[in-house]
């Protein structure tokens, strides 16, 4: 099997799973209980949280565990909207967001909020001038993802923050950093709110977090005892948190060298794809090396994916969360419907090997040729 869909999800690493199992077996107490078993769990919970916070350079009270990035995005956008609606009802988002952001925005529109979309240039970089113009005195939130999930364009969060805060110091800056963390360095101090999930960094599914700068006030979406966290009640899922913490430590370790390695794999793939006539590489100078997006001229992306699947090679059309539609990111980049119609995303990780890349390229060549010839013969 060759897995090239690491941006959709990653397999749980063996060590992380070991921790998950051990925490499940040996720490049965509810971390909210006051007896010895509860306290034992609580101490482990605190250590796991502290490790994550130390790795990210944030305070423990600034971290809220969620079921994943989608919930964190909901908590951030709706939480801000509810808390600050007296100040204004305008929210600014980019055209390169994860579908969950757009769905939340659609909902907020029904609640009387106004959503403004900020433009980007042909390299995918947010148009600074446009951002400046779109931030108004009633703009309560700007949400721009750190790395786009389809084409991997990375935004300069620090600069964006400076622009936003200069225009309106009260505007809160949220970023979905799910595709960035563990791949490239992210400084959370550039952002007020950040969403991420564990399953993109070889951790278990079902856990993620929202980073919340202590100055930001949110209205919780899930109410409860508030014992574990006022913003997100419920019994702390200790094994998930422990596994998440471990996955985070492993992911952030030696991150620069891992990125360099993936960059090499990326070059090989791009070099190969550029030799095909009917393939366009949707890559800009701001794309991270882990994501390679290509548009197919003649071949249907979905068909190619199923053809590759026969050889146990797994990758995605645009993103796992938005399959079937036009690629919004490719549209935002090139404004070319045809190009956005049939796209494939190959996503790499530092565990991808050179041999896997070679084997993939060989099989891809055969399958592509087969489908391309078929389409051509159809036309004739």
């Amino acid at each position, binding site marked *: 099997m060759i897995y090239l869909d690491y941006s959709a999800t990653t397999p749980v690493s063996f060590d992380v799973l070991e*921790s998950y199992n051990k925490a499940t077996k040996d720490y049965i107490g509810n971390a909210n209980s*006051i007896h010895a078993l509860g*306290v034992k769990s609580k*101490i482990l919970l605190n250590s*796991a949280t502290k490790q994550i916070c130390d790795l990210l350079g944030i305070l423990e009270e600034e971290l809220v565990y969620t079921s994943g990035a989608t919930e964190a995005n909901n908590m951030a956008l709706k939480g801000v909207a509810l808390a600050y609606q007296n100040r204004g009802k305008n929210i600014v988002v980019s055209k390169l967001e994860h579908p969950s952001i757009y769905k939340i925005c659609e909902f907020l529109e029904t609640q009387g909020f106004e959503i403004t979309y900020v433009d980007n240039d042909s390299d995918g970089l947010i148009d600074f001038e446009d951002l400046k113009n779109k931030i108004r005195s009633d703009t309560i939130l700007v949400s721009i993802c750190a790395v786009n999930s389809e084409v991997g364009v990375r935004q300069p969060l620090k600069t964006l923050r400076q622009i936003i805060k200069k225009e309106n110091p009260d505007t809160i800056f949220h970023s979905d950093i799910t595709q960035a963390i563990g791949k490239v360095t992210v400084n959370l101090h550039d952002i007020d709110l950040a969403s991420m999930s564990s399953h993109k960094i070889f951790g278990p599914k079902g856990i993620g977090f929202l980073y919340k700068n202590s100055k930001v006030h949110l209205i919780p979406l899930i109410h409860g005892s508030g014992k574990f966290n006022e913003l997100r009640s419920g019994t702390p899922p200790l094994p998930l948190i*422990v596994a998440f*913490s*471990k996955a985070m*430590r492993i992911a952030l370790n030696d991150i620069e060298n891992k990125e360099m390695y993936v960059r090499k794999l990326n070059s090989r793939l791009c070099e190969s794809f550029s030799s095909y006539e009917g393939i366009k590489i949707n890559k800009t100078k701001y794309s991270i090396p882990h994501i390679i997006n290509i548009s197919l001229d003649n071949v249907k992306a979905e068909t190619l994916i199923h053809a590759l699947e026969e050889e146990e090679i797994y990758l995605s059309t645009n993103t796992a969360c938005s399959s079937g539609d036009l690629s919004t990111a490719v549209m935002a980049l090139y404004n070319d419907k045809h190009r956005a119609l049939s796209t494939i995303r190959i996503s790499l990780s530092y565990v991808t090997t050179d041999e896997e890349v070679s084997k993939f390229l060989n099989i891809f060549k055969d399958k592509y040729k087969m489908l391309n010839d078929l389409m051509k013969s159809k036309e004739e």
Partner: protein
Amino acid sequence: MEKLVMIKYGELSTKKDNINFFLKQLKDNVSFALKQMDVNIKFDKGRMFITLNKDNFDEVCKALKKIFGIYEFDVAYKLDSKNEEDIKKSVLELVKKKEFTTFKVQTKRSDKKFPKESMEFNRLMGGVILKSIPNVRVDVHNPELLVNIEIRSDGVYVYFNSEKGIGGYPVGVAGKGLLMLSGGIDSPVAGYLAIKRGVKLECLYFESPPHTSIEAKNKVIELAKKLAVYNNNIKLHIINFTEIQTTIYQNCPHEYLITIMRRMMYRISEIVARNNRCKIIVNGESIGQVASQTLTSMNVINETVKIPVIRPVACFDKLEIIDIAKKIDTYETSILPYEDCCTIFVPDHPVINPEFAKAREYEKLLPYEDLIYKAIKGHEIINITKDDKVEFSDLL
């Protein structure tokens, strides 16, 4: 030139014949604090020098800010030559890397063999900087960049803006003391202040399970850990106080509960202190704060022991104590809401002005000597290290 850290002693330098005793202790403490950072330490009567084998100045400086006995420290450059022209050249090279518009040169010449006097050298060096770097001027009152040049017999040292240390005496020079650590806000602060004057602390905690929880005990361990940073590790004695406390409760008039309980605690503390060669007891009592801390209460409670009892926060307001607690990072832990043995069995109206005679008489109702012996015998001792080792290394 060589980059190093230079430490200034402050109050310690007023010591005369026994200064070496203080400095040796300081050196031991510094090397203990920096033991994983690969450094070499040298000292004389005026300065201590730390040379680093790696470029980890930030880490070293952070650690130095938690060592008592250091008045000030600087990241300094030791120049290769004491020749006047070479000094000018090297200083200029260093200054050029800085961004500033106003500056001042401050020379200290402890090596009187150096031909130029301090004032004269200030003028000379200032002139060189003015001539070589455009758009800067001298400001002797509020300079952005203070260029310190120390001409010492072993070499010339240059440093810029200094960092303040936390002062005090090196831990250990005063001998050992036993801190009655409760888990509240005051006692960790009292401990910190005692450590500041060079007292090496051990801690004593009274637990009353099941009336007090493991969480309360863990909280005290956490507090001891925070103090251990300043104390080079810490030994925590844990006394099971349940039997004594319940016996008092069952036998003595309730308005005297606290008075008698404190008398027992004092007695136990004195024995533990003596057994561990601690010369004083330290606690967090503050005059008038609660019924057991009125002057009359202090008299009646204190009469049970001969050992000196030091109360560093006796004359502090609560808010002043809280300020220090926040500074030393114990406040957030202290306010965690767990019962400790002073908050259980609290009578509705504790006596504010207890009488010696009554306290002595009520005490006779219980076999306290046996109970104390039992509590101390085989009590739990935890050695707490400041090393922030990752717990659960197998899981995380």
